[in-house]
């Protein structure tokens, strides 16, 4: 059974991707009413990324580092830690700042997003980036969990 911290980390991470997906969808054809929802989704997405960051970091330092990492490195697939986990834990650090940037632009332009196509396109591009990095990080998380199971510690 998975550690509850891993479940919270993964769940908040996936929900944050979903929040920015909603921002993206709402921004494709925005209306006055949608602007309010877009702001709420962006703020929720950013908060969820921070929760995922904190919980994942606590799990990484407390459980993964001492128990899981050595087993994976000594197991049949050491690259799971050396390449996948190392990449995941550092690329993840980009997400909170990209989320703050996207949310900052949304809150600053507010209803101006309806008329300013450049600003809207920029936020759409940022959402795509956040979603793609989020999905990549989630995929890497799945690989690490599988690697831990193969190493006998998952």
């Amino acid at each position, binding site marked *: 059974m998975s550690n509850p911290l891993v479940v919270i980390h993964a769940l908040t991470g996936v929900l944050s991707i979903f929040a920015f997906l909603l921002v993206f969808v709402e921004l494709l054809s925005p209306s006055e009413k949608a602007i309010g929802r877009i702001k709420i989704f962006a703020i929720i997405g950013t908060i969820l990324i921070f929760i995922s*960051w904190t919980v994942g970091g606590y799990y990484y330092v407390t459980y993964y580092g001492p128990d899981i990492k050595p087993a994976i490195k000594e197991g049949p697939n050491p690259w799971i830690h050396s390449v996948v986990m190392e990449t995941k834990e550092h690329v993840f650090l*980009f997400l909170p700042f990209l989320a703050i940037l996207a949310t900052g632009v949304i809150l600053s332009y507010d209803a101006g997003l309806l008329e300013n196509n450049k600003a809207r396109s920029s936020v759409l591009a940022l959402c795509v*980036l956040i979603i793609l990095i989020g999905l990549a990080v989630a995929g890497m998380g799945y690989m690490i969990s599988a690697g831990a199971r193969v190493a006998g510690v998952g």
Partner: protein
Amino acid sequence: MRFNIKSLNYSTILTICLIVLLTILGELSDSFKTLLTSVTGHHWVTKSVLSLIFFVVIYFLISKTVKDWADSNHLIIDAIVVTLLGGAIIFGFYAWHFMH
């Protein structure tokens, strides 16, 4: 709520550069990794805290000098390019590091 978007862009770009730099330097130099570890007890936690503090400080520093917050959409594209490059550099570095 209104942010200085130019400053937000610059601080995002510089923070991502800092994360990439700290990550690679930490792997190439044991003494630097030990230094990072000594701050909080774990090098990754230090990188996390440092990047957050750096982001906030850079935002307020640039906000004091750059006042025109709008018309900076091209900077968002720069932030996206830096993010993609940063991710590719980190992945490429760890793949190279593992193979050698």
